[in-house]
């Protein structure tokens, strides 16, 4: 599987990564070579094999739906790039 620059641009958009134009060619080469490595999987017959969801085949442990953490908003927001009145600030989304 070989990826071209347009494929890389599409993937970068899905991954929310801004790639400058000159870098897309390099990523197209690198990603194609990684997919080339992965290609070895296609030769394996996996008919009837259950996909492995967990190394120990454990099921998800559940806990009662009760609060276990205190409110630490001020502490958590102290490391945020930009906040105001307890809110995280981002560029305007709705005009």
């Amino acid at each position, binding site marked *: 599987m070989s990826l071209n620059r347009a494929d890389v641009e599409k993937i970068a958009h899905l991954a929310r990564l801004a790639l400058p134009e000159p870098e897309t060619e390099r990523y197209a080469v690198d990603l194609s070579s990684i997919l080339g490595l992965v*290609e070895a999987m296609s030769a394996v017959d996996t008919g009837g094999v259950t996909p492995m969801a967990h190394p120990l085949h454990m099921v998800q442990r559940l806990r009662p739906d009760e609060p276990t953490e205190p409110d630490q908003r001020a502490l958590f927001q102290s*490391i945020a*790039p930009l906040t105001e009145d307890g809110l995280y600030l981002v560029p305007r989304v709705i005009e």
Partner: protein
Amino acid sequence: MHELSITELSRRLRGGGLTSVELTRHYLERIERLDPALNAFVTVAAEAALEAAARADARLARGEGGPLTGIPIAHKDIFCTQGLRTSCGSRMLERFIAPYDATLVERLAAAGAVVLGKTNMDEFAMGSSNETSFYGPVKNPWDLDRVPGGSSGGSAAAVAARLCAAATGTDTGGSIRQPAALCGITGIKPTYGRVSRWGMIAFASSLDQAGPMTRSAEDAALLLQAMAGFDPRDSTSAEEPVPDYAAQLGTDIAGLRIGLPREYFGDGLDPGVAASIHGAIREYERLGAQVVDISLPNSPLSVPVYYVVAPAECSSNLARFDGVRYGHRCEAPRDLEDLYKRSRAEGFGPEVKRRIMIGTYVLSAGYYDAYYLKAQQIRHLISDDFRRAFEQVDVIMGPTSPTTAFPLGAKLDDPVAMYLNDIYTIATNLAGLPGISIPVAPVDGMPVGLQIIGDYFQEGRLLNLAHRLQQATDWHLAAPPGLA
């Protein structure tokens, strides 16, 4: 002082005329003098370490504490430490101060260990050479022109150079074992779920596991004892009781069956490394173990499977770094999409971007079945290989890495060549099994690691086997020249 085992240091701290403050000062002096050439530490916390050492001394004076009380260690910079920067080797977290301690950090602090600082690592633990760190590469203490391995390269180099008594690491595809091998130390990746992942920055959640990196199996047993155990805050934490690892050291190994997978001794394995591994296996035969030829037929597929599963999980885990709640944010974003895209592009380095993009691609509409589902199916086959092997043998042995440490820059421009370093370590992560790497005879002055893989929750057996070899030989005592 820095050549002593943790057991011996602990004995001296309890009335042997040594204080933790003195020991901590000794290591801080070594870090200041030797680390500029190695770059093993990203952050040194001298003041906090000396305060913790004084508290440990007070505990010891009252006759309290355990075998780790007052012992200076270092944490890989992937573990959240309250009030002390956690960068994960990334620009994204250059100024990130976690508001809480990881469970592992909390447990080792409760045991009285003194934290000297945080060690360098590949960015977000993605790498096998410690060259993807935003904070610069780590140098191998045995040869400063070579890599220490990765991703726990800073921890491995710090332990090998005697800059700390022990360090923590994480292993997603070999990141404890491979740098341990390349730096000549002991490193164990426990069974998936054995050590809590809470507060350990996630890379690939179904593979990530933390473990100790030390100069001997005996030291590793003490560290793992404090780190392991059920944690309700980690939903994948194993609810298995933790045995007394130190008590298992010295168990007789007569009659133990060692499986040698033929796939681990084929093309691509350096002949010198192969000779060294066979030499160590002969030692085990002298100690009474039996060698059995086995096959892990699907193991050559572990690298391809890993490079679907790990990037898929990483692309999802790293989606949280969006420049909004914490971490790097770009200047003057035009709109929200621009904020996300530029913050992430500026915050992540090239290897992290490659893996995020591969993961995004294999999970995208139309490709999921061909890549992700297929990989998880083959993962099952790889796991079944081990299950069948453990019906015939007690442990599996082979090389940790196909070669000794390679020169800095040698594989940096070829991601696939870099990925193939982990050919012998990845399968155990995919299966969730424990594995240990211990030093054996060096090749051309560079360390070689023997890997021992055990069945689920057999960490005690692995530590005992490692300890038996370290009682019979002195490979693990070799120190890098020029770092006295």
